[in-house]
């Protein structure tokens, strides 16, 4: 019997999903990142050309999303390490929403400085 489930509609589950999706996205990004860094082995001009290409607004926006993903993954990981290896704290909702808010703020700061 296939059942529709609504028991996922709470903040800790959202944190779980965001942590997984950000982790997968970063895992996909890393090989591309290393590939781009590898351009310098061919020639510095190739790397410079790529860096110039990243100045486009859409690429900047994608970079901001990437930074948010990185921050949100870091915040989620630190929260889990804290409760699973150090001490439990009942204010999990505050930690989760705080991690999301700080990550978004850092992404916004990156865009404003870009």
């Amino acid at each position, binding site marked *: 019997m296939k059942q529709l489930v609504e*028991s*996922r509609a709470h903040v800790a589950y959202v944190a779980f999903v965001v942590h997984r999706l950000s982790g997968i996205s970063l895992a996909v990004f890393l090989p591309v990142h290393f590939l781009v860094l590898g351009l310098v082995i061919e020639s510095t001009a190739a790397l410079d050309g790529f860096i110039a290409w990243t100045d486009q607004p859409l690429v900047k926006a994608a970079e901001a999303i990437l930074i948010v993903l990185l921050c949100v993954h870091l915040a989620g990981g630190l929260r889990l390490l804290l*409760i699973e290896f150090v001490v439990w704290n009942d204010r999990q909702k505050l930690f989760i929403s705080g991690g999301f808010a700080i990550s978004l703020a850092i992404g916004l700061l990156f865009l404003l400085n870009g």
Partner: protein
Amino acid sequence: MVSDIKVEIFKGENGQGDFVAYEVPRLESQTVLDVVTYIQRKLDPALAYRFACRVGMCGSCAMMVNNRPRWTCRTHVEEVVKQGQLKIAPLRNLPHIRDLATDMAPFFDKMQKAGGCFVADATVPQHMLEIDPLSAARQEVDAGIECIGCAVCYAACDVAAWKADYVGPAALNRAWTLVKDERVADVNWYLKQVALDGGCTSCHTQGACSVHCPKSLNPSRSIAGLKQAMANAFLKGVL
């Protein structure tokens, strides 16, 4: 109250079947269990479901109500009814027997697998331990010990749905209350039980167990405590 509630109840055997619609009169202070009982007594005597105490002590009447696991005897219709409708199904993650009844055996077997039995120190008769009810360890035990074994947490848990050998939040919560119990003979034995595949390391801290526990227990906290204790035991070389 005059309006009726439109109730859909899953009917069938071994996971095969479909939802059947009924109309039940709406009453004041009516619980979901009252609704199911009305249907069995007045509309469909063949309806199978399980209950015993009706007062939130026995843990036998849990069902999926509008797609969420709940203890039906203490859930008022007014809390959960959506546009005059209720959808009631058997508990998720457990083998289906018939209609609203599931086989609870795997749930209790997993409690045993996670070391759910109390094994006291053999010297207790000679050296009776004095347990301070205000001590930190006992307070941690007290925080988790009121579990009634209703399997609501187990039905809410996605890991239990994804991983067949995952023992589940209730079993790990029980193990945590024993790990923190000063009277048990061998704490490391319990830690070895929960360190096995399907034990506490399988939990992804999704927190559905704590959100849905009708007794407001916090199995997520208990599982995090087990992970801490397990890591400490591993670092000390006893695991």
